């Protein structure tokens, strides 16, 4: 049973494997480097579908990347900072945001301000606003949803104040795109980073970054693009300016297929949320310390269990019951001090649109064996 969808989704969109194989076996297609018709270009197909999904009419402003980490590095390290610039972000961020920012801070290129979160892993709007006024930022980075607690942030409100102060806004939609409706104009996001292999149900090795026409990023990777090869620098046109190198075309053929499948088969969020609530409540009844989230959330549950080491629990679930989940900090090291799971982190169960009620009930049956913490048999060497 697979309950690690916040790491990468499984199963993927039906038929994905065939699409990737087909694209691998056919005559290679190099975007921008051949005269094939545009509708055969998987990259163009992805851009068009992603533009629709994000509520943007500007498919040429979608830079396709290998993953959200690359997209976030591009947005942060390629941002045209000036000396003295401040960046405001939050304690719920993933290392894909924190590590690039820490590097810039250590090099003295920016001053970094990290806003705490509450016990649900949510940014308090008042605290965020106060920070923005105290430290007017050039760039604000907020994770749309925590990969640890599932809490969906009120990005629209957070970004409204940030933009009113002249900041550029960057949203990490790794945990939401494909699951939660995103309208980047309504949210006020100047840049949105996303991955293809989580709730978009695409293959690993795919992701991207939407960049508003008002934002000019510098490439952090330069090289061949297949166009304007006579120039010493990267060509000015988007998205090629930020897409050096030959892309993983078969993977993007897979992503295009997944996006098309998703357009025809929208996830039933009520059903997913209902299962998630049922699992949460069952775990609480069994004595687990579940990080409860009020309001909107993704189907992610973080918990600890009194008397149990989370690593041991994860090991038993996986090896003893075939339940794939995740333990530890989940690459989001700062949030745990606010949600009561520091220093070792939590056991995380993350559902998807394919998780069934029978699977959730089975997980609850398994957890009954953990609780209450029974006295183990102390075996002695004979």
């Amino acid at each position: 049973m697979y309950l690690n969808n916040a790491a990468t989704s499984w199963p993927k969109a039906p038929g994905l494997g065939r699409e990737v194989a087909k694209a691998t076996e056919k005559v290679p297609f190099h975007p921008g480097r051949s005269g094939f018709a545009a509708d055969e270009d998987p990259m163009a197909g992805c851009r068009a579908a992603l533009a629709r999904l994000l509520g943007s009419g500007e498919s040429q402003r979608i830079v396709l990347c290998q993953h959200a980490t690359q997209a976030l590095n591009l947005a942060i390290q390629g941002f045209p900072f000036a000396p003295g610039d401040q960046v405001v972000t939050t304690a719920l961020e993933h290392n894909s945001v924190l590590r690039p920012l820490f590097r810039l801070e250590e090099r003295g290129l920016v001053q970094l301000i990290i806003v705490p979160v509450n016990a649900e892993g949510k940014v308090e709007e008042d605290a965020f606003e106060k920070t923005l006024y105290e430290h007017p930022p050039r760039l604000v980075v907020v994770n749309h949803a925590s990969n640890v607690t599932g809490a969906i942030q009120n990005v629209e409100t957070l970004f409204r104040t940030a933009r009113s102060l002249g900041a550029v806004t960057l949203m990490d939609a790794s945990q939401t795109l494909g699951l939660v409706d995103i309208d980047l104009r309504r949210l006020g996001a100047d840049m949105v980073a996303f991955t293809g292999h989580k709730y978009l149900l695409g293959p690993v090795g795919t992701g991207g970054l939407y960049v508003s026409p008002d934002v000019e990023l510098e490439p952090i990777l330069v090289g061949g693009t297949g166009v304007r090869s006579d120039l010493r620098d990267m060509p000015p046109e988007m998205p090629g300016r930020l897409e050096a190198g030959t892309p993983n075309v078969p993977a993007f053929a897979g992503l295009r297929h997944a996006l098309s499948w998703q357009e025809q088969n929208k996830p039933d969020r009520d059903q997913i949320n209902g299962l998630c609530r049922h699992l949460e409540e069952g775990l609480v009844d069994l004595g687990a310390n579940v990080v409860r989230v009020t309001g909107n959330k993704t189907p992610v549950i973080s918990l600890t269990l009194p008397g149990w080491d989370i690593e041991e629990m994860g090991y038993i679930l996986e090896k003893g019951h075939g339940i794939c989940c995740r333990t530890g900090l989940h690459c989001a090291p700062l949030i745990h001090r606010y949600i009561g799971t520091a220093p070792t982190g939590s056991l995380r169960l993350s559902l998807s649109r394919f998780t069934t009620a029978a699977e959730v009930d089975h997980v609850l049956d398994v957890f009954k064996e953990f609780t209450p913490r029974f006295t183990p048999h102390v075996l002695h060497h004979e």
Partner: protein
Amino acid sequence: MNDFESRKVEDCFDGSRVYEYRLVQSTIDKAFIKSLAALGQLDYFPQFPRPFFCVRSQDGLQLKGVQDEQTFQVILPSKEQQSRKERFENELRKILIRRSP
């Protein structure tokens, strides 16, 4: 032929201390689990369909596994890791020799 193999396992923290061991010619049965009590305090959880066990030695070595698997996991103490790993493997060899027919 070696009785076991080991490989480093990456985890969320400092993965350099975590190893997975695989018994090459046998699976982990209750007799093997009992013999691990020679290494430290052995806790055994028979309530699970596939019983879980863990061992904690006085110097901080931790071992955990599930009955009927071929693999188990060892977390070495932070001090003198290489020599502790060698000592653990010697102890494991002795255990395996004792239980061989």
